[in-house]
């Protein structure tokens, strides 16, 4: 029993919004659609919901042709980025709405609604008007309404992106708990996000999308450790993975005149040639025996510092595990953790990954 998308194409203007998408979703699982803004995530969610009809392709759900079923009969639920609730109804009425529409039994409605309110932590707010609530609370109401429906497919389109930073952190944890309960096995959860950290925290299967095309699907661990190509490596890391042109020659890994390494053990079997060398920001360290880099700018995030560096034409970002300000053009010495190097072919495909050889 699952949701299958086959060769979906959606091209409303002269650009593809969805370019030959085929995906398979199973019950009881959490899927994160990870991609940049305008990569097609929202369009994909809306197509599954039925709010947009693809130009060609088919969607099959539980063996039935989904495309033949209109939106209001599809039994899906969607939570938007902008907090969408019915403004003329109070919290309780908002959550009841889909259940009343379905003409469910009154007592059953009462039970489901109070369950949902409990789950999202809004007990006591039942008779409040939507306009009186804060952003976070409004989003919880939208979530409660989706949960109360017990829809088979629950779609979430970057639901936390418009909330305060700290609120986002808290709600993300709550989401995780909500989507892995025992009842969760009855539904498919699809969560769209631009933030790789969010995708990792949700720990479901990741679907990487860019410019309407699916670049890779796999478990969070798999996609993180073995990105299928350089583009995926960029999208699934924050800061983006450092990618620089380099070559293997005469048993050395060469990035530029200044930065060269003796070929480490794990790369001995690699043939000579030009490559795109990838290394994560966390795998670059401050090291007095390292190479000289000039600081372009330092960025501080909560608990660590990101240094944007360059050495001639080689640019990279290093994550330093402390909070420290660096001045522009300051010199620092950086070394590479060679056991974590990735090699991509010049076309971008993954050639060597430190986790899978």
């Amino acid at each position, binding site marked *: 029993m699952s949701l299958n998308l086959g060769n979906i194409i959606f091209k409303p203007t002269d650009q593809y919004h969805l370019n030959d998408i085929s995906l398979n979703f199973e019950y009881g699982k959490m899927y994160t659609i990870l991609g940049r803004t305008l990569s097609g995530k929202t369009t994909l969610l809306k197509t599954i919901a039925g709010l947009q009809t693809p130009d060609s392709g088919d969607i099959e759900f539980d063996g039935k042709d989904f495309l033949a079923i209109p939106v209001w009969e599809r039994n899906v639920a*969607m939570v938007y980025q902008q907090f969408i609730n019915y403004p003329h109804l109070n919290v309780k009425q908002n959550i009841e709405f889909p259940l009343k529409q379905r003409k469910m039994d009154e007592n059953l409605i009462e039970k489901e609604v109070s369950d949902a309110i409990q789950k999202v932590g809004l007990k006591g707010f039942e008779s409040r008007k939507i306009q009186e609530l804060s952003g976070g609370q409004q989003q919880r109401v939208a979530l409660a309404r989706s949960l109360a429906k017990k829809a088979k497919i629950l779609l979430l389109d970057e639901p936390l992106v418009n909330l305060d930073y700290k609120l986002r952190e808290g709600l993300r944890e709550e989401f995780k708990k909500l989507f892995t309960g025992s009842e969760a096995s009855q539904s498919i959860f699809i969560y769209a996000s631009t933030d790789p950290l969010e995708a990792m925290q949700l720990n479901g299967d990741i679907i990487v999308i860019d410019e309407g095309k699916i670049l890779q699907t796999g478990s969070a661990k798999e996609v993180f450790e073995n990105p299928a190509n350089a583009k995926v490596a960029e999208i699934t890391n924050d800061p983006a993975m450092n990618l620089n042109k380099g070559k293997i020659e005469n048993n050395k890994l060469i990035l530029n005149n200044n930065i060269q390494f003796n070929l480490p053990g794990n790369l001995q079997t690699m043939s000579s040639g030009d490559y795109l060398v990838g290394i994560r920001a966390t795998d670059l360290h401050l090291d007095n025996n390292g190479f000289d880099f000039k600081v372009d700018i330092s960025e501080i995030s909560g608990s660590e510092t990101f240094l944007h560096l360059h050495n001639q034409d080689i640019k990279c970002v290093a994550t330093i595990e402390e909070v420290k300000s660096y001045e522009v053009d300051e010199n620092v010495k950086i070394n590479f953790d060679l056991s974590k190097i990735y090699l991509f072919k010049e076309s971008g495909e993954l050639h060597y990954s430190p986790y899978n050889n």
Partner: protein
Amino acid sequence: MPKLYTFLKYFCVILWSCFVIAPFLWAISTSFKDFNSVTGGATYIPWLQFEPTLDGWSVLFKPGSQGGINIIGPYFNSVFVTFTASFISIALGTLAAYALSRYTFKAGFVQNNDITFFFISQRIMPPVVLSIPFFIFLSTLGLLDSLAGLILVYIVLLMPIAVWIMVDFFNRVPKEIDETALIDGCNPFQAFFKVVLPNSIPGMIVAGLFCIIFGWIDFFFAFILTFTNVQLLPVKIVALNSSITPWWSLSAAALVSVAPLIVVAFVVERFLSKGNLSGALK
């Protein structure tokens, strides 16, 4: 300093209120006067400066045979025509506005905005331009001098107002609300009636007000398109005029015709101030 400011504030408001109420007070006082009180010199306060009579008022209720005009019939005609035409205009106009707001129309270079403008442009034309076409139109249909004919004409005149106001209102309700309603199990009609419409009540009330006012005060089309069978209030009141202008009955007539509008205004204002119209969306 602040005290002076407050005093000035209240003073200006009271001054302006007097300015606004004065004509009404004048009309009320004039309606109780007779010929001499009006022509002799300016008189204001009843019993002190002149002897109030009910002449002006009684003329409005006497039938023509006794030298008066009976406004009761025309009064109800006006009410019926205005409210029916307004109601239908709003019903149709709101549906049209919703379509214009939510769906994309394109025929050649004509798009949604052009269609909306086309509706609004109907109100820009001077009414005189429409007089002959409407006359011929109703005559062909056999609806001259009939309530149905007049209602038809008023719908044509009032619907653009409804469309104009409601398109703007619907544009302010995010499309995502309709989508959520669809996802929650409503078909498009239910989505419109259960979700979008309740959030557009302020707009409908404003549109309603405009329609009622413009419909009620219309003299031109009522004059041209009705004669004996159907008489509307504005036309009937004009019939009061004779060689001697009867200021007293005219004042009474004016008050009587403005009264419903004032009642509507008060009712809506009470409704407004109760906060029922706070359909504000975040």
